[in-house]
């Protein structure tokens, strides 16, 4: 077996009748697929990642891409993926890293859930006529309010409220660090979050100065590497999120290779230039649920109890019980990241095999918190694999207060989900630090695209709610009666607490 003996994944062809030899494809492709060869453009398809940059930029639509142009002898068990993983590991003896979220052939539960609408017996609500209340508050809600009469008809609130985040729509932008993505990408997301009136996460990459103007829209992350974390960083954020785990690689830490640690990235992470940024798998000051409480409270104490503290976990087998433990740690919100959550790089075996879907995790966490009478103690945020507004509606009906969107926001900026983030050569200027590539991403334009996306989803969510006769997001939250399962088995319907279609 020799290198290159596996067939090419993609075949690029250039229509010579259409091509005008402008060489735009050569300039645009950082992977080196194209070169000029006399009076034609020659291609090396093996370099192609299917990022579509050339196709998007070709003024003549002369470029064509075919996936898996060479067939293996088909076999239902020995798929192309399994065979090629073996070739790779036989050659290298190493763990295979892969980009983006779970690529396993698992059914998407969201796609087996349908939403309700009003017919005859109750009227639907027209969002054009009636106000739809989508404003969402994340954080602790008091279980009772104590008020005091202060003379006349005036009353005063005696109960001390804990800080909440106010979102104008129940969608936030997920944690994607500077380092994993470019500064222009982060800036675009931050501007979009500010324009919409929502929040975004910093990831474990610190906070670049260019983001300071949007700091009251940033949720600053504290992960196991503690990169970029100091008291200034904690005080700048609107909220603090402790990252325990990530849906794409539950149980693992992170690893930003030294070649991505450029001068600016080194500054925000506060590590030397060109060194690997290794985040250990556990937080080494958290070895128990009691220790988590200590970290939550240390962050609150450091910021004088002015900031909500979120705790993010990967969706795993006992998410519900873990969420109940977190709810007792004085955390203000639990973020549950499902196994479809994206990443720049994760071991393939983790990405595709560890963790559970967000739908089941969020429903069971919500149910457990309600059973224990502590649902008001924490907000629940669903993350990982939210692709459209219907997913948002369904996640909320299953018990989430809000969702994080990550990949969808990147797609809004041009990402083609090619999954080659780890190469650091993203032709869309997103998952790269190379200046000529990051310059392709214009924050003025892309912030608008991201804001447009969230705005559009918010409109759709309003319509879905109106059609169901609901005018407030609170009435949709955990409202499983608005969901029916279509071809879901009895076991999963029980976990989701959803009836089957027709029932």
């Amino acid at each position, binding site marked *: 077996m020799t290198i290159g003996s596996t067939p090419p994944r993609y075949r690029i062809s250039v229509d010579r009748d259409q091509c005008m030899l402008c060489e735009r494809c050569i300039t645009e492709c950082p992977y080196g697929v194209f070169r000029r060869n006399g009076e034609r453009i020659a291609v090396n398809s093996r370099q192609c990642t299917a990022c579509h940059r050339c196709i998007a930029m070709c003024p003549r639509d002369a470029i064509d891409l075919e996936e898996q142009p060479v067939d293996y002898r088909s076999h239902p068990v020995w798929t192309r993926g399994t065979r090629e993983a073996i070739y790779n590991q036989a050659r290298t003896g190493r*763990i295979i890293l892969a980009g983006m979220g779970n690529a396993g052939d698992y059914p998407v539960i969201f796609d087996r859930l349908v939403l309700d609408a009003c017919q005859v017996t109750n009227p639907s609500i027209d969002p054009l006529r009636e106000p739809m209340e989508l404003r969402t508050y994340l954080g602790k809600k008091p279980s009772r309010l104590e008020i005091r009469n202060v003379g006349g008809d005036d009353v005063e609130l005696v109960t001390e409220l804990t800080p909440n985040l106010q979102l104008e729509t129940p969608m936030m932008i997920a944690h994607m660090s500077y380092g994993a993505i470019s500064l222009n990408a982060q800036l675009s997301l931050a501007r979009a979050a500010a324009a919409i009136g929502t929040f975004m996460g910093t990831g474990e990459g610190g906070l670049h100065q260019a983001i300071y103007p949007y700091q009251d829209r940033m949720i600053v992350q504290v992960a196991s590497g503690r990169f970029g974390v100091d*008291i200034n960083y904690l005080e700048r954020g609107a909220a603090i999120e402790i990252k325990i785990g990530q849906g794409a690689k539950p149980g693992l830490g992170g690893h930003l290779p030294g070649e991505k640690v450029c001068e600016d990235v080194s500054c925000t992470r506060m590590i030397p230039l060109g060194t*690997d940024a290794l985040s250990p798998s556990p937080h080494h000051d958290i070895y128990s649920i009691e220790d988590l409480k200590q970290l939550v409270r*240390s962050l609150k*104490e450091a910021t004088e109890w002015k900031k909500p503290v979120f705790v993010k976990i990967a969706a795993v087998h006992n998410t519900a019980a873990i969420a109940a433990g977190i709810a007792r740690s004085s955390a203000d919100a639990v973020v549950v990241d499902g196994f479809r959550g994206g990443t720049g790089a994760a071991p393939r075996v983790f990405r595709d095999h560890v963790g559970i879907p967000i739908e089941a995790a969020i429903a069971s966490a919500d149910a457990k918190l309600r059973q224990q009478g502590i649902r008001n103690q924490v907000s629940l945020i669903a993350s990982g694999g939210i692709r459209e507004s219907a997913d948002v509606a369904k996640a909320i009906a299953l018990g989430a207060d809000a969702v994080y969107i990550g990949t969808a926001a990147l797609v809004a900026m041009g990402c083609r989900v090619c999954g080659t983030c780890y190469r650091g050569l993203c032709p869309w200027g997103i998952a790269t630090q190379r200046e000529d590539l990051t310059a392709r991403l214009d924050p003025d334009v892309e912030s608008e695209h991201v804001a447009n996306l969230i705005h559009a989803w918010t409109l759709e969510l309003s319509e879905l709610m109106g059609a169901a006769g609901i005018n407030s997001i609170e009435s949709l939250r955990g409202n499983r009666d608005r969901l029916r399962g279509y071809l879901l088995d009895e076991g999963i319907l029980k976990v989701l607490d959803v009836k089957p279609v027709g029932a």
Partner: protein
Amino acid sequence: MTMGGTMGGTMGGTIRIDAAEMDYTTLNRKIRSAAASGVSEVILDHVLGQRFIADGLRGTVRLIINGVPGGDLGMFMSGPTCIVHGNADHAPGNTMDGGMIVIHGSAGDAVAHSMRGGKVLVRDDIGYRGGIHMKEYQEKSPVLMVGGNARAYLGEYMAGGLIIVFGIGGGAAVTERGIGSGIHGGEIYIRGPVEDRLLGVGAKKKPFGAAERKRIAPFVQEFASHFDMDGKALLDGDYTRIGPASARPFASKYTWE
């Protein structure tokens, strides 16, 4: 709260706080307001298990802590000095950015966890995971010095800075495994010999000569002066120097899809 010495508000003065029966939030609030008033020293009496003392505190104030502080002493601290007359619970100096913690006693697990700058000096022993994931950045380079012994996983995942373990009081300074597992920056100096089998994956013994002795000399002197020890005697003798085998310990573990 009782105030002794110079009253609060006077630049350079001292404020005394009686921490008996006081919860940590109230205590920290008093420490913050004392520091903000401009005094140079705050004395805390009857400290008994209060966590997060000086958490996120800035400036140059000096805290004298009489008693046993709880976990995460000086977490995220940036500048002040804490002198503890007693033992400390786990993770003093956690994610500390600058300043100094001097403990006249022993400390628990994860001492100086993820510390980026400043110094933590422990007169006696520390628990597991001392100096784990310490890192350095520009002018910041954290230092952890331990007079007695350290338990397993010392300097694991270390990315920068300096750890010195003196092993005063007999026996080997470190007798447990996992020293510097995954270390990719910084150095660990352990007085006396260290068995090879105690080194973690990615850690490597390096030569200790005159240049290295000179490098650690000022730190050793500083340690000795804090605890009334003979610095010269401490500096003499053999040290085992441990550092990263590679700046990229995991580079050969992965391949791409």
